[in-house]
């Protein structure tokens, strides 16, 4: 039975359970019984959930474990005795065989072609088992619940529990997915660090992943220029643009603008946040970068690059203006009005009040927002992919070409890549560092913002 067919069958069973439980429960509703805790529809849903829940849970778990079971069965067959001993080669043949058994085309290892029928057979065997088990679970759950339909059974509360379980499951999906991503990142990064010493990777200054010396991969995988480039573009140049623009626009819109001006100006500013980053990317690459290079040449900087850190950083700064502006606006508005009045009543002008009273009071909130904006900027990919250079240089010159972590991850993973070379795995190590940095920034920012909120509420 196909997966789709199986799912339809289970849903069909649930529907049958729903209808029959409703009918059965409706029969209890005689006028004699006045108090009736659960309505027929509650009974119906409890039965439907009992039909759906167990087989679907089983199928989810099964889909995670069955590939390993199938592979074990194939390996146990006599055909597998001929497989090479190298674990890696064996895994590649097996994955080819699986692709072949599932009907995909392509060029395959000859051993895989021989193994494919066995693979398909094993797959069929387990699919059949799983379908049968799922249907049995559905029926068993349905019968179990149906038998319990009675006036005394508090289906209403059981349903409530079922809803809670459902919500919990939804939350778990998100949490487990995150955990899975982090886990795979850690796993691949650990493989990388088994090949390249962490100290070389984190502190080395030469980054040329195209040419890696197998004897000493660490020598050409020093990621320090990337970290610096990321920090330079995302945290220094972009912030030099976003902080003043964001803060000043927040002050104008939040403190000076009349409600009517604010009503259109604030959404207009927030449109900046809605522009796809790829659009910012070609704006940076096509419009800003050439002008920045010309400016550099005009200023007498001979090596001004058309893929300069300045171009990418400027555009990235514009991109995050709305983030800085809206968090700053919120922070300024969270300052109690009495504090503002207190300053005005002493004869301070509005701008003196903002400078001396509102901004100091809102500073933690503003700082938290800026940290969040930085974490967004250093994780930003599309602008730097299009506008930054691929060449890693450790430089303070904003007109020189610079690259970033995200840009390098894209470069490492596009094109022909083998998933066991230091070059490819370096992408995961870079990803891990980036993840750790943004996580740290976010945590610090949230702690600051939270403390600050508590101080005024």
């Amino acid at each position, binding site marked *: 039975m196909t997966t789709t067919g199986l799912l339809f069958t289970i849903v069909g069973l649930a529907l049958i359970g729903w209808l029959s439980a409703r009918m059965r429960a409706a029969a209890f509703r005689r006028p004699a019984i006045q108090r009736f805790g659960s309505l027929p529809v509650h009974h119906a849903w409890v039965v439907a959930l009992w039909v759906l829940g167990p087989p679907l849970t089983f199928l989810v778990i099964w889909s995670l474990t069955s590939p390993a079971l199938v592979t074990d069965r194939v390996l146990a067959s006599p055909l597998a005795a001929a497989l090479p001993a190298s674990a890696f080669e064996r895994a590649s043949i097996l994955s080819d065989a699986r692709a072949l058994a599932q009907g995909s085309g392509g060029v395959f290892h000859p051993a895989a072609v021989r193994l494919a029928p066995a693979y398909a057979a094993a797959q069929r065997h387990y699919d059949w088992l799983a379908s049968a088990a799922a249907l049995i679970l559905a029926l068993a759950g349905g019968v179990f619940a149906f038998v319990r339909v009675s006036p005394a059974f508090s289906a209403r509360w059981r349903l409530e529990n079922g809803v809670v379980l459902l919500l919990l499951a939804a939350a778990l999906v998100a949490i487990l997915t995150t955990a899975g991503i982090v886990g795979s990142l850690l796993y691949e990064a650990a493989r990388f660090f088994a090949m390249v010493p962490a100290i070389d990777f984190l502190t080395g200054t030469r980054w040329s992943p195209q040419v890696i010396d197998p004897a000493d991969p660490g020598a050409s995988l020093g990621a320090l220029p990337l970290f610096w480039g990321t920090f330079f573009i995302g945290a220094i140049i972009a912030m030099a643009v976003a902080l003043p623009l964001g803060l000043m626009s927040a002050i104008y819109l939040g403190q000076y603008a009349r409600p009517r001006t604010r009503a259109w100006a604030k959404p207009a500013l927030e449109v900046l946040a809605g522009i796809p980053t790829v659009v910012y990317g070609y704006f940076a690459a096509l419009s800003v970068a050439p002008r920045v290079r010309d400016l550099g040449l005009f200023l007498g900087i001979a090596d001004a690059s058309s893929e300069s850190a300045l171009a990418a950083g400027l555009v990235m700064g514009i991109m995050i203006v709305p983030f800085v502006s809206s968090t700053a606006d919120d922070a300024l508005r969270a300052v109690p009005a009495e504090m503002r009045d207190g300053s005005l009543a002493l004869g301070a002008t509005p701008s003196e009040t903002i400078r001396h*009273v509102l901004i100091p009071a809102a500073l933690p909130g503003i700082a938290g927002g800026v940290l969040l904006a930085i974490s967004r900027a250093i994780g930003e990919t599309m602008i730097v992919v299009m506008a930054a250079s691929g060449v890693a240089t450790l430089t303070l010159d904003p007109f020189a070409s610079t690259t970033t972590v995200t840009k390098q991850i894209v470069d490492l993973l596009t094109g022909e890549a083998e998933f066991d070379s230091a070059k490819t795995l370096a992408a995961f190590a870079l990803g891990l560092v980036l993840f750790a940095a943004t996580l740290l920034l976010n945590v610090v920012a949230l702690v600051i913002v939270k403390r600050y909120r508590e101080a005024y509420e």
Partner: protein
Amino acid sequence: MTDAKLSARNVSVFYGATRAIDDVSMDITRDEVVAFIGPSGCGKSTFLRTLNRMNDTVANARVEGTILLDGEDVYAPAMDVVELRARVGMVFQKPNPFAKSIYANVAYGPSIHGLARHRDDMDRIVEDALRRAGLWDEVKDRLDASGTTLSGGQQQRLCIARAIAVDPEVILMDEPCSALDPIATARIEELIHELRGRYAIVIVTHNMQQAARVSQRTAFFNLGRLVEFGATSDIFTNPVEERTKDYITGRYG
């Protein structure tokens, strides 16, 4: 009246189309404490806030009539609201120290108005203001601590010190004790006694005993109108108006 510090003539205040104050006239002299009493929403706070133009910060507020400070029209185009507020200080209902040190809270007004040339001058101004607000002995060893770490009563005295530091001529107090406990309230009332004569003080209060204790003259507001204004002893023992009597005795409001 020539000795009037503040003089209101036919003042009406509107919020949009709503009339919050209706044709109020009164004089306040330089060495007295005047209490404003009346039921909630009667306009006494609104009237107080027109005296130093704090209603300017409310978008749709409009003031008619004249208010004179030493004979100068407060609402005249030539009047600089910054200077006005330096001369007419204000203390609010809720203690509102800035998120700064105790020292910086008091130094804020003098520094924006350029009252101190040197750090020494400023130290003197801050100490003087804190002493007059009766807070110096409690905070002299922790002037760098944040103003928000003080207790509610201390915070309110800090706000009074902050207002005193710019050397105003009038101090407006908008229910300054309503957020404080009885002991802190007694301390503020004591302070008002000490400040009397040096500044004209106008205090809005819901607490009639407080009005009787601290003021020389009391104004009773109701529904945006000034019902009665006279010596505090008369208002509380022998009011002219029936409505005042009803309010004082608790039958009304």
